[in-house]
């Protein structure tokens, strides 16, 4: 098997596993479908925005939950934004944590919130690493002169 075919196979297997394990949902596929020759880096650009946004939000959340008098409305506003952005790029597991997180905000449950923040951070780091690995694979395929397989 030549190098390109091997890389392409790896790419397909990796992508499939990300969907199967629930890291990504259909919205990620929708983003890939939007990419075209006029905007060949669209997915990477959007995902990079998500990474930047997420890190800011996670910091803001940590700060907000460390206050003496916690403003749960503010915490909820941050989580709402995080839920929105993760949903928009198909980061399903992050989004699911945000849903639970919002419930704890409604209940003004500090322990629940702190737990969710940790989970959100973990899921974010996971998906960030996985997407970076995926983009890396794409680059390797392109540099070897191959084309990136379209996932249906």
């Amino acid at each position, binding site marked *: 098997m030549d190098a390109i075919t091997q890389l392409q196979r790896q790419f397909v297997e990796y992508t499939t596993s990300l969907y199967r394990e629930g890291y990504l949902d259909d*919205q990620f596929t*929708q*983003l890939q*479908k*939007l990419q*075209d020759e006029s*905007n060949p880096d*669209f997915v990477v*650009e*959007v995902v990079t*925005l*998500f990474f930047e*946004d997420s890190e800011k939000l996670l910091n803001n959340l940590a700060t907000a939950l460390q206050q003496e008098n916690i403003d749960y409305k503010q915490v909820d*506003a941050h989580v*709402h*934004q995080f*839920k*929105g*952005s993760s*949903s*928009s*790029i198909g980061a399903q597991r992050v989004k699911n944590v945000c849903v639970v997180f919002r419930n704890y905000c409604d209940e003004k449950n500090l322990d629940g919130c702190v737990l969710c923040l940790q989970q959100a951070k973990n899921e974010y780091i996971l998906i960030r690493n996985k997407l970076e690995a995926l983009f890396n694979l794409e680059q390797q395929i392109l540099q070897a002169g191959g084309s990136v397989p379209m996932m249906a």
Partner: protein
Amino acid sequence: MDSSSTTVGMKEEEEKPHVLVVDDSLIDRKIMEKLFTNSACKVTTAESGQKALELLGQGEDKHTHMNKGPKINLVVTDYCMPGMTGYDLLRKVKESSDIKEIPVIVVSSENVPTRIEKCLEEGAQEFILKPLKQSDVKKLRCHMQFRRSIKGRLCIGA
């Protein structure tokens, strides 16, 4: 320089429906912009209701800048925005004699029946759940008013 092709290019650009996308999320603005440009629309984005109103020629200086805004054929606004919500923006559009004819689509990540009713009653053309897909956008094309006055809805098949 081939001037005739430039003219044709510009004319084609002008004849595309012009969509104003309003959302406080940069990620969502970027995605919606691509969704609409992929459907052969021209897109302008705004990060707030206030900015949107300015682009629609309804800013604070509206009396000094007569008809300065570009012709917008469709407004797509997020519901949840800090400051002026999508609902507030919808109301302002529908209350204004200049721009009330422009169809407004409200999008939201939350499926709240009372919210949907409220928006539709206020004159929103549609209420769509986020995240938007290409198929949602294709269906929206029939809501867009074109430059030449075409009364009623003109549905262009996908």
